[in-house]
């Protein structure tokens, strides 16, 4: 009888080209996506006089430095990086979804939309949130610039086989509890370094009931638990979502139907969570692990985080005044995210400044067609051009020093949204609730 195997093993094993005695494995990479920040990797390639080995498997997308409001002050340096990507794509013969292209968007939103992310494949990108693509049953992870150069030159990567961890989410969540709340609850449980060295498979009825967009939100933040990658077994939801995508196969290959972990497959670690016990979550501190139910109080113990965030231990997190709201990022800027936010904002006004940035041109157009954009604009919020925007502030969308931002992004690190910026991570519906009340609010009380 065959040894039961995990989803991870079923993807990893066929991609190993060389397994060295010392544990290093040379992996074949099926897809490589580059963005403006990959200029260091191209620089290394040029320095060594090397070419891109497989231009047909390499795709370029502009996202990190794209201005969300082009009418605002121009940034010559950022425009230079966008132009450098354009130049590198042209020189090396790569498909490029440039600013203004209907296929453009954040790598982790537009890539899957184009069918670049497929079950059973390996995908890398010089961005830690590449873990997002694991939602399709791909093995996908972020790499640094030297590794970008290595993949460009060889279409391979040296990796040590990671350990495996399964997180089973049972039960059924409350209607106002989103994928974002589940992953924040998971990270609060594991800690920010709790999954270091592991590939996490998310499984169980609460995960499999999620849309592809929800699964992407979950896998996206795997890296905030320290995981190398997150994965979800592909199923009919996955196949239906991929049908008709530009670069996806026309028919579902038989190989995809055999990817799910076998019964009895062994994981190095297992964790179980009940979705019914998850409340809308919000972070209070400077690490994504600092997540608590919105009904909770700010805990004691991390004086530096409390001082940075301007919070006192023992006070309820709900009611904390916010100065602005950001709805966007590779975590939460897909259509269901914008629909959830619009459901709260419809017929209401935002009482603090808000910025809503769709994850891709396709999401933006559909949101405009559905009337979601009008809901945001009528509420008094800005409706930006697709890109990473205020999640990381590289395009100039910054939170001012000392300002408090309710954000649907993935990191509340010190200085992440700008020097001195105070970030509270939450779901799109919770961010919308904060926009209409000007404070952290339990969306279940508002909806």
């Amino acid at each position, binding site marked *: 009888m065959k040894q039961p195997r995990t989803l991870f093993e079923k993807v990893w094993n066929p991609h190993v080209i060389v397994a060295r005695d010392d544990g290093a494995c*040379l992996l074949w990479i099926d897809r490589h996506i580059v963005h403006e920040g990959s200029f*260091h990797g191209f620089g290394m390639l040029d320095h060594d006089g090397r070419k891109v080995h497989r231009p*047909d498997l390499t795709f370029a997308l502009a996202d990190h*430095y794209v201005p969300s409001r082009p009418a605002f002050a121009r940034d010559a340096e950022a425009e230079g990086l966008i132009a450098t990507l354009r130049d590198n794509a042209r020189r090396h013969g790569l498909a490029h979804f440039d600013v203004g292209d209907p296929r453009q968007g954040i790598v982790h939103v537009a890539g899957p939309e184009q069918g670049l992310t497929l079950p059973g494949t390996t995908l890398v990108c010089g961005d*830690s949130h590449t873990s997002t693509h694991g939602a399709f049953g791909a093995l996908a992870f972020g790499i640094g610039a030297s590794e970008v150069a*290595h993949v460009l030159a*060889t279409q391979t990567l040296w990796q040590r086989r990671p350990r495996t961890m399964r997180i089973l989410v049972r039960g059924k969540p409350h209607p106002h509890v989103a994928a974002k709340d589940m992953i924040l609850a998971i990270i609060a449980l594991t800690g920010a*370094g709790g999954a270091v060295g592991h590939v996490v498979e998310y499984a169980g009825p609460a995960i499999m009931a999620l849309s592809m967009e929800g699964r992407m939100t979950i896998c996206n933040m795997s890296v905030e638990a320290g995981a190398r990658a997150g994965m979800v077994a592909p199923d009919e939801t996955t196949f239906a979502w991929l049908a008709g995508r530009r670069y996806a196969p026309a028919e579902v290959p038989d190989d995809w139907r055999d990817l799910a972990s076998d019964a009895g497959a062994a994981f190095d670690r297992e964790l179980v969570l009940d979705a019914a016990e998850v409340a809308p979550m919000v972070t209070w501190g400077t690490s994504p692990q600092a997540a608590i139910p919105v009904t909770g109080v700010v805990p004691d113990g991390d004086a530096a985080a409390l001082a940075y965030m301007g919070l006192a231990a023992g006070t309820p997190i709900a009611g904390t005044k916010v100065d602005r709201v950001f709805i966007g990022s590779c975590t939460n800027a897909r259509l269901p995210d914008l629909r959830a936010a619009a459901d709260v904002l419809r017929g209401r006004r935002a009482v603090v400044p808000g910025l809503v940035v769709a994850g891709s041109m396709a999401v933006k157009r559909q949101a405009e067609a559905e009337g979601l954009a009008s809901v945001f604009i009528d509420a008094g919020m800005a409706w930006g051009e697709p890109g990473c925007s205020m999640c990381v502030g590289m395009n100039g969308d910054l939170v001012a020093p000392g300002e408090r931002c309710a954000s649907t992004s993935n990191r509340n690190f010190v200085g992440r949204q700008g020097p001195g910026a105070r970030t509270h991570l939450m779901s799109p519906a919770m961010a919308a609730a904060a926009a209409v009340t000007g404070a952290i609010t339990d969306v279940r009380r508002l909806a």
Partner: protein
Amino acid sequence: MRPFGVVNGRAAVMAQANVDTDQIIPARFLRKPRGGGYGQFLFADIRAEPGFPLRGGEVVLVGGRNFGCGSSREGAVYALMDAGVRCVIAPSFGDIFAGNAAKNGLLTIAMPVEGFVAGDMTVDLPGQVIRAANVETRFAIDPFRKRCLVEGLDDIGLTLEHTAAIAAHEAAVPGWARPRS
């Protein structure tokens, strides 16, 4: 890559857990060309705080759990290297950070850090030993990573020794795994 043998010099201790790469180098500096020197950006937003442990000239940084978590930015490694740091010792590291470090000749040693204090330290990679005023301890390291660091090996050059195996694998990739034309 600059080979790593034995380094000695001052060590600083920065004990808090989860020091992320956004703190090591804030995002606004990542647009700068590599040639300009990244050392000036190291911990740019927090190094002026009172009691900040790095004063310049440190060769070893002793960190806390999950050091270098977060963003994949290799600029975090450039900033440390350009500021003169050759080795980081911490109980654990962000996976991507540790990979980036190895590719640039920055040694990361994962081990408990109790007992390490600021002051002179010697890190001997070939011998896998750390020596400080009141500590002498051996450390473990991935053998492949050690060889690359000690010999200053070019990773891509090493991979190209496997060109035949790569070509054979490439020819056998199933049709569905290729982008539809």
